[in-house]
């Protein structure tokens, strides 16, 4: 935390996990302590609201105005600047754009909406028809895509290390799934709950690709971000592999894929919010094993179990991997019965990654 005189306010927009805010709230500097306390109260109020929304959503499935069974998409163009959302360039039912990136984003939002609706009966991100907004052409040579709490944002990549972030439909699905998590289990974005948040996005991102291609689990590539790496990357096929975490790339420019597949190789780090994009390899791999054990279309049973765990209200916002293993196993039992093929696949998967 920087407290130099040039800062009139502490930098609370930076990555400040709640446990750190807790510490700052007890700070002897009353200015920091008050601000941290206010942030914590706002945060917890928001979480309570989301929980209430989730629980109400389960208790009262028929809202006053039922959401239609179609998405309400809008794609914006940031025109290489960073102001959001940017200029509106395509809206639901409107004419096709002359810009392939705009059309890819639009199609990706549609594919994501369709999987959640047809496989899980969920209407959009919030389950109540929330409009889906995406901004493309964000920034200059911007090597990233993110969810800002309200919408998806996609960079074009620098054309060397990374290409346009809309090229992989699983990346689009990944960002939208962050929205679904935000409205449901709302897993805190640091440490193991953060890695679960990331993993859930990879799982649904991959399922959206598999659904769009109508693939069975044994035919899927189980890669996240295939086709995204640019010509300067010599050795790499994607950003992450759920089938074989740690093997997606090994390259002079990017380094080596740091993902572990099992708890034996769990990475303790403070970087990247405590390794949320690293240790997500462990629950990712567990999902792959479940889907492979069960065979067929991965979204039908394995995906349903993950969806039930995410939305069932049993997962705490600070859940760790063991909590998630327990809740998914319980979800498998609740839906498919004790000792059934699904329950056994769950036990085998969590045991294989060191969480049995």
């Amino acid at each position, binding site marked *: 935390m920087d407290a130099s005189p040039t800062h009139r306010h502490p930098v609370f927009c*930076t990555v400040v996990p709640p446990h750190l805010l807790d510490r700052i709230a007890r700070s002897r500097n009353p200015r920091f302590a008050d601000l941290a306390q206010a942030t914590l109260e706002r945060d917890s109020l928001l979480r309570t609201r989301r929980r209430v929304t989730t629980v109400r959503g389960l208790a009262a499935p028929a809202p006053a105005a039922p959401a239609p069974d179609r998405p309400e998409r809008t794609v914006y163009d940031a025109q290489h600047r960073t102001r959001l959302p940017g200029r509106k360039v395509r809206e639901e039912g409107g004419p096709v754009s002359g810009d392939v990136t705009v059309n890819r984003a639009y199609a990706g939002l549609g594919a994501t909406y369709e999987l959640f609706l047809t496989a899980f009966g969920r209407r959009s991100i919030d389950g109540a028809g929330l409009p889906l907004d995406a901004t493309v052409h964000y920034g*200059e040579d911007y090597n990233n895509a993110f969810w*800002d709490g309200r919408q998806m944002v996609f960079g074009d990549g620098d054309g060397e290390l990374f290409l346009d972030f809309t090229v992989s439909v699983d990346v689009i699905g990944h960002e939208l799934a962050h929205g679904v998590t935000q409205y449901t289990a709302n897993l805190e974005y640091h440490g193991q709950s953060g890695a679960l948040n990331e993993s859930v*996005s990879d799982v649904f991102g991959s399922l959206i690709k598999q659904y769009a291609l109508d693939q069975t689990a044994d035919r899927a590539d189980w890669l996240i971000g295939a086709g995204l790496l640019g010509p300067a990357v010599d050795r790499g096929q994607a950003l992450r592999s759920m089938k074989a975490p740690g093997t997606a790339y090994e390259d002079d420019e990017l*380094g080596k894929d740091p993902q572990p597949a099992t708890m034996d190789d769990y990475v303790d780090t403070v970087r990247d*919010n405590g390794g949320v*994009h690293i240790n997500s390899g462990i629950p990712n791999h567990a999902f792959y094993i479940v889907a492979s054990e069960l065979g067929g279309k991965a979204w039908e049973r394995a995906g349903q179990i993950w969806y039930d765990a995410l939305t069932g209200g049993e997962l705490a916002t600070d859940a760790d991997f063991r909590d998630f293993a327990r809740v998914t196993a319980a979800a498998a039992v609740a839906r498919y019965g004790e000792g059934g093929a699904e329950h056994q696949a769950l036990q085998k998967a969590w045991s294989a990654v060191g969480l049995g």
Partner: protein
Amino acid sequence: MRISVVRTGGFAGIERRGEVDTSGRPDEDEWRALALRALRPGPPCDPADPAGGVRDGFSYTVTVDGRTVSFRDPHLSDAQRALVSRVLKEGA
């Protein structure tokens, strides 16, 4: 003036670092002005959700002659964005 940038997080989760020593460079004054502007606070984040809403955003730590500031996407000033992209490009 020594300027270093560490960028973490992002969809890929790949860390990037860059460092530039501006001493004696013909464009030293320009670097210095940019770095000093980048040390000032960026635009405020959403007051309703200051730390939470963004997923897969980049986080940046910038150190200018021993003074360190941190910020995260998308809450960067133009100077912060210009500085981090220049240092990561030229000082990688």
